[in-house]
């Protein structure tokens, strides 16, 4: 059904009588994707949908609150029963094709909670503005993923000594419907591809991955821009050079190698590929806008994550950063899972307050209160999150 969205009803006369073509009514993404009513649709073709901070309060993100980011059109007529994955590329010792069933039976399965954040999360705040979907804070999730290690299957096919990078290929369709174009084909260096937590997943939160999240097979690479976690993956190439697929080159998912002034022009050659995402945190409880009776304490909760690293310290401020108080931060349940913080806050008198949260990673790097380095495509905004509170 999703497949016909955004397309002309070419074979309209073949549609069964009484069937309501989705594309000709208001397609309801909330029903179609099973979303929470408060999720925000940024773009309906391609589908790009984000959460609000308070929807992400669960320790493990439920399906209904997971952001959806698509570069192309969701593939049609997926049949998990006939799905195959091919391993190829200059640095593969042999080309090998696996059925989904073979992947599941031949290799050991692992389950991890993995943080996936869109490289452009927070783009809406950049000035001058950067083009693209104007994500605010909700293009991040930490779900439970089950699958096999990418390393196991790459080693089964055989990795040559000159391997540099892997690149994925998938079944989605380019927006122009040009079958010679891939909407997106990204990848990671071998070191990241071979990590324990880098999965080829077929389950999300304990059930088959939903279509919008990559059914039936998704690469899940925690801590890096979520665009490397390719959905609907049917081929992985072991490359002897940096993968040069769609959205690996030019300015896509790249930032200036050397920092630039806001609005400055940057040549493609001076742009470097984003690897680990920076340290960041989100206050997920309470929802911004709480009115609190004077004398009452405010309980806050949230998550913090730091790309490849761990969050080592968590602080909050109720006076716009003039003073900070440390609060407890839990250890991650596994590497690359987000960590949870909480605090109980007292306010000295009535008035308007903002609660700001700041995480610091294991290398001592913290979140900036203002926007971090401007970049042409508006990536990596990890400025502190804040909520408004009024004590009345």
């Amino acid at each position: 059904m999703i497949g016909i969205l955004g397309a002309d009803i070419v074979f309209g006369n073949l549609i069964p009588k009484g069937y309501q073509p989705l594309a000709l009514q208001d397609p309801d993404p909330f029903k179609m994707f099973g979303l929470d009513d408060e999720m925000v649709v940024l773009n309906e073709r391609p589908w790009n949908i984000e959460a609000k901070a308070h929807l992400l309060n669960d320790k493990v993100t439920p399906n209904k609150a997971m952001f959806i980011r698509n570069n192309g059109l969701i593939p049609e007529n997926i049949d998990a029963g006939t799905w195959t994955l091919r391993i190829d590329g200059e640095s593969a010792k042999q080309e090998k094709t696996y059925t989904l069933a073979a992947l599941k039976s031949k290799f050991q399965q692992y389950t991890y909670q993995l943080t996936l954040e869109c490289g452009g999360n927070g783009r809406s705040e950049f000035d001058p503005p950067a083009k693209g979907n104007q994500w605010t804070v909700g293009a991040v999730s930490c779900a439970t993923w089950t699958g096999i290690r990418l390393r196991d299957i790459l080693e089964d096919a055989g990795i040559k000594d000159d391997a540099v990078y892997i690149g994925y290929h998938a079944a989605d369709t380019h927006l122009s419907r040009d079958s010679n174009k891939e909407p997106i084909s990204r990848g990671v260096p071998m070191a990241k591809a071979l990590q324990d937590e880098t999965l080829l997943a077929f389950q999300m939160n304990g059930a088959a991955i939903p279509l919008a999240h990559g059914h039936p097979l998704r690469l899940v690479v925690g801590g890096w821009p979520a665009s490397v976690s390719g959905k609907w993956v049917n081929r992985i190439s072991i490359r002897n050079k940096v993968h040069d697929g769609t959205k690996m080159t030019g300015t896509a998912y790249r930032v200036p190698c050397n920092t630039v002034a806001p609005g400055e022009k940057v040549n493609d050659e001076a742009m470097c590929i984003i690897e680990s995402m920076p340290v960041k945190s989100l206050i997920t409880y309470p929802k911004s806008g709480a009115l609190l009776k004077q004398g009452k304490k405010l309980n806050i909760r949230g998550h913090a994550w730091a790309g490849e690293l761990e969050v080592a310290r968590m602080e909050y401020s109720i006076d716009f950063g003039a003073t900070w108080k440390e609060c407890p931060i839990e250890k991650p349940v596994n590497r690359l899972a987000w960590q949870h913080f909480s605090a109980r806050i007292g306010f000295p008198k009535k008035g308007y307050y903002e609660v700001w949260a700041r995480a610091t990673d294991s290398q001592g790097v913290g979140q900036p209160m203002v926007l971090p380095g401007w970049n042409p495509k508006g990536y990596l905004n990890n400025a502190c999150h804040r909520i408004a509170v009024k004590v009345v």
Partner: protein
Amino acid sequence: MDKQQKIRRQIKAIYKLLVIAFALFVVIGVFMVYAIYNHETLLSTKTSSVTEYAIIDSEEDLDKIENGIHVRTGLVDAAGLMEVVNNCTNCHSAQLVTQNRMDKESWLATIRWMQETQNLWDLGKNEEIIIDYLVTNYPPRKKGRRATLTDIDWYELEE
């Protein structure tokens, strides 16, 4: 009348025909559903919404403007609207336009990027009309290094 207008008129005529054909098809479909399910579904909201849709989707309402907004796309109603609708919403939704704000140079660079990599066609004399529309209606706004929190939905916190 130049050739392009002629073609456009023909396309419009074909489109109109298709819309009518579709409306007819839906009506027949609804009729058949009635026939199959008989009186049980006569009052159901699902079938009546189908009928309603066929009525709303008539030619005259396709480009309805409400409060200065083109309802079907959400674009601002201003000079150049239809050129933008016809050239910029074929591959992606208009939301990718309306959520962005750029200066002339950046809008033009975006068009060039789409032409070089995304199969966007040569816009011809429409290019200037489209750029003018975008720069006039979707210019950048100054946000500074960190904006004030706005649109706060105040509520009493009960614990």
